[in-house]
């Protein structure tokens, strides 16, 4: 059975999205969204990182290979990084990586980036909604997934 056949059999498919959130801003933003009881889709699995600069391209690609349907990386707004410049350097790396991924044929919208501050609970919820919707529209990820080992249905 190949992936296409498998996927056509999954009813009510819901995307799995891995979100790498910077501890100082976006993670706190997610917290605020929670405390404020703002509703957002439950499709994200959050991984807390110390800074968006900590997000190695490996993390993103490994997520995709392990079967994530979407990835989100979120950090502090430019100028607000707790380590001053972590997100500036990260931004260049993300730009290059995103371009490579889309160039080889990974659909635009699988890998997403955002800046969300600790005060932006609303924005966090909006980002999650947007990302979830775009990933839903793309359907289950099929590219870069390891055929064996990972995909547990």
């Amino acid at each position, binding site marked *: 059975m190949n992936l296409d056949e498998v996927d056509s059999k999954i009813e009510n498919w819901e995307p799995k999205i891995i979100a790498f959130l910077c501890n100082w801003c976006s993670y706190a933003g997610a917290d605020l969204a929670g405390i404020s009881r703002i509703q957002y889709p439950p499709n994200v699995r959050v991984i807390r990182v110390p800074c968006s600069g900590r997000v190695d391209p490996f993390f993103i690609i490994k997520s995709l*290979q392990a079967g994530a349907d979407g990835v989100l990386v979120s950090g502090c707004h430019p100028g607000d990084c707790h380590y001053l410049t972590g997100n500036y*350097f990260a931004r260049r790396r993300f730009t*290059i990586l995103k371009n*490579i991924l889309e160039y*080889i044929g990974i659909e635009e919208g699988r890998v997403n*980036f955002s800046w969300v501050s600790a005060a932006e609970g609303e924005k966090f919820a909006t980002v999650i909604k947007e990302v979830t919707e775009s990933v839903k529209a793309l359907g289950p990820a099929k590219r870069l997934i*390891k055929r064996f080992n990972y995909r547990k249905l």
Partner: protein
Amino acid sequence: MEIVERIREEARKALEEKKVELIIGFEEGSLPLRTTPAFIKSIDAVERLIWNATCENNLANYLLRLKIKGKVGIVAKGCDARSIINAIKERQIERDMVFIIGVPCTGMVDRKGIKERFDEAEILEAIEVNGQIKVKGERFEGSFNISDFLYDSCKTCTQKTPSLYDVIVGDEVKEREDVDEFREIREFEKKSPDERWAYFTREIESCIRCYACRNVCPLCYCKECFIDQSRPQWFGRSIDESDRMIFHIIRVFHTAGRCVDCGACERACPMGIDLRKLTKKVEKDVVELYNYKAGIDLETVPPLATYKEDDPQEFIK
């Protein structure tokens, strides 16, 4: 004086004056249209050095992998010199530990193209004279212009004269300003994501993961490559499509702002995989986004080691 004579003269001088312990250059290979890297330590051996349109290896690679303490001399074309600049910038070698014999280059011949031209018949002899190569096989003879059979990377090269050298042998070559080196990439970008995915999966399907592309590249000097790491083992070494693809994604990511389009990786690949489609794309992005070309000078900070507050970020929500 011919270039080869001048290379030998400079090499001889450098060895005589004990300026260097070793000269890295090219010598005759065992097959026609082939040269091989030469490691010259004694003055007598200087005569082995040659120069022609098949000196295609990027010698900077050896500079990084040699375990020699003293100063090393190296014969460098435009792209080799760019790789040496990279290595100095990345603190892999010190400027005053390398003696660069710069050779303005007019391009290297693509052996595969020549073979095709002669219907894959075996070439037994090849002689280069005045921009032409005469070849002989068992049942044929022919000649061709070198400029008609250049490697793709040589066709679009914009730094034929070394950008860094201690001595230069031969006259500067006029750099071309009319080449559009990213045209092919722009064309390819116009295809749909599905078509591009299909193209790369097809290309990479034949990758046997020999890592020749990595081993030949003067950027890939890591003591332990990510693909060899075992604790943690980030990515598999299998020939699963995703494992193969990921090796190439990350390798090409690691060339960002560093690749000099010497073409060594593609030439080294025993499966003829179109690696330049990847490296050239990243090169293009770096030029367009950060206005940076690798290996042009010693001063400009590499693009991923710096930032600007107003770097493009339209894609970030």
